[in-house]
């Protein structure tokens, strides 16, 4: 076991390349910081000691531990989100060297090999910044809520076992179920543009909530929600509210907003066939709209 781990480490070293020997001892990072929601953003540079097999999270941990900028000033530690550290929870999405990805699976050796010495970290640009690299992804979850991305089983009595799902259907559905709501597809989507609602002084929390929700709903719902709608519309029990999902997908900000740039599928860390889902939802929307027109 130890031997295998060693050789895996060697592999990573190999990928890093020895031409970066100079950068070996330290890792330089440039972080786009923001102290408060709605505040001014500014760049700050950090330098941490290099260790083999570091990822961006471990770099951020070191930054937090030393709480000093590159020029030695004492600064507040950089704030970021993370949880599972194995690319399944979707919470550590950020822009690393300008591209949306998971910080936990972004290895320092590879980043340095790709784009040189300094690593650039920015918060996602499509969601309001809460602080530093932490963003408010409420709209992402509103998208899932809008398309009812769940199987409706709530009830006052036992509904009994659900229908069987064939292995073929399972194989088709499984990749879609891997979605971890990381938001990479939304960050890379040129049609998904930032919606930032700011609470007014005279506004109650409930009123603001309502206004924010309707602001979210005017924008594009996003590839993740479309794919989840396809997943649950393919599920024998989930299908029971298929029409409600189609209704949601054809409302303002629905599937029609897709511009077919196909960035979503290119950046998805789970390699979910998002464009297939979008095309399937497009077909379903075509059929649904025709039914609505002729069957009423």
């Amino acid at each position, binding site marked *: 076991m130890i031997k295998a781990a060693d050789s895996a480490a060697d592999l990573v070293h190999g990928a890093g390349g020895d031409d970066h020997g100079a950068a070996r001892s330290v890792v330089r990072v440039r972080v786009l910081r923001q102290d408060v929601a709605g505040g001014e953003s500014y760049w700050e540079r950090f330098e941490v000691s290099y260790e083999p097999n570091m990822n961006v999270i471990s770099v951020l941990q070191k930054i937090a531990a030393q709480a000093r900028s590159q020029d030695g000033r004492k600064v507040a530690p950089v704030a970021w989100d993370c949880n599972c550290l194995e690319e399944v929870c979707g919470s550590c999405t950020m822009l690393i060297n300008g591209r949306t990805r998971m910080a936990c699976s972004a290895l320092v050796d590879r980043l340095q090999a790709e784009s040189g010495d300094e690593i650039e970290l920015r918060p996602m640009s499509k969601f309001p910044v809460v602080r530093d690299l932490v963003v408010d992804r409420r709209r992402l979850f509103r998208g899932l809520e809008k398309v009812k991305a769940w199987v409706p089983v709530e009830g006052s009595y036992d509904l009994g076992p659900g229908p069987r799902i064939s292995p073929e259907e399972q194989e088709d559905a499984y990749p879609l179920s891997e979605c971890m709501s990381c938001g990479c597809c939304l960050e890379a989507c*040129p049609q998904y543009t930032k919606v930032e609602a700011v609470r007014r002084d005279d506004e109650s929390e409930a009123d603001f909530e309502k206004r924010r929700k309707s602001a979210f709903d005017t924008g594009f719902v996003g590839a993740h929600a479309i794919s989840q709608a396809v997943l649950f519309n393919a599920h024998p029990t989930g299908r029971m509210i298929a029409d409600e999902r189609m209704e949601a997908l054809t*409302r303002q*900000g629905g599937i*029609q907003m897709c511009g077919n*740039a196909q*960035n979503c599928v*290119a*950046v998805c860390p789970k390699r979910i066939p998002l464009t297939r889902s979008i*095309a399937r939802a497009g*077909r379903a929307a075509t059929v649904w709209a025709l039914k609505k027109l002729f069957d009423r």
Partner: protein
Amino acid sequence: MSESSPSFLERHQFVIYRLFSLSGLIPVGAFLAVHLLTNASILAGDDGRTFQSRVDMIHSLGPLLVPVEWAFIFLPMLFHAAVGFVIIANGLPNVGSYAYVGNVRYTLQRATGMIAFAFIVWHIMQLHWLGKPFGGGKFDPHQAASTAATALQPTLTSILYTIGILSTVFHFSNGLWTLGITWGLWTSPAAMRRANVVSIVVGLGLAAAGLGALGGFRSLDVSKAREAEVWTEKQKRALSVPGGAVAPSPIPASTH
């Protein structure tokens, strides 16, 4: 933010965007194909006689041509352009950060759409009778080849036409591919790849037709074409307008 009630465009966004998508193929795209292939008949090498007969066929609609043009060409095109500009305004191209082929095509689709719109407005003003009040409208359906060739002679015009034709054809053939995804005709990555090949072939074919026609007009011997037109005109007069053919020109045939 959005406290006002949603606009008509917002309430019917799905239907409007789908009609937008459809209008790009039928009738606008279909017209583009017919238009470019008609023009390519200038390459027949008969001093524009074939081209003239195609033009005569179109103009055999007589006074009906005007409502047909508006209903099937101008209005759908204006609708497509208007919704297109709304779509462009709401998007945020990011090809600098994500230089994937699909994303480049997304950006080009918007760029070529705007170029195509500007080009088509100019093209109509230059050649179509609608442009006459503005000093354009140079195309005369009775002297189809010679007037078109004369208008296309300046080098700058040819360069702008080359850009305009290529933009329009790219916009159409790439749009054909995305339309298939939008309506759910091709859904799997493999099917999208196959459809992409078809779209590229259609695009290359139309580009060849369009640029071929442009080259054909530029290399046309205008005086010979004019002779051919005078001859055709005389024939028509002699036959006193057989059914379906174009009415004779009010210009005396001996002007040349």
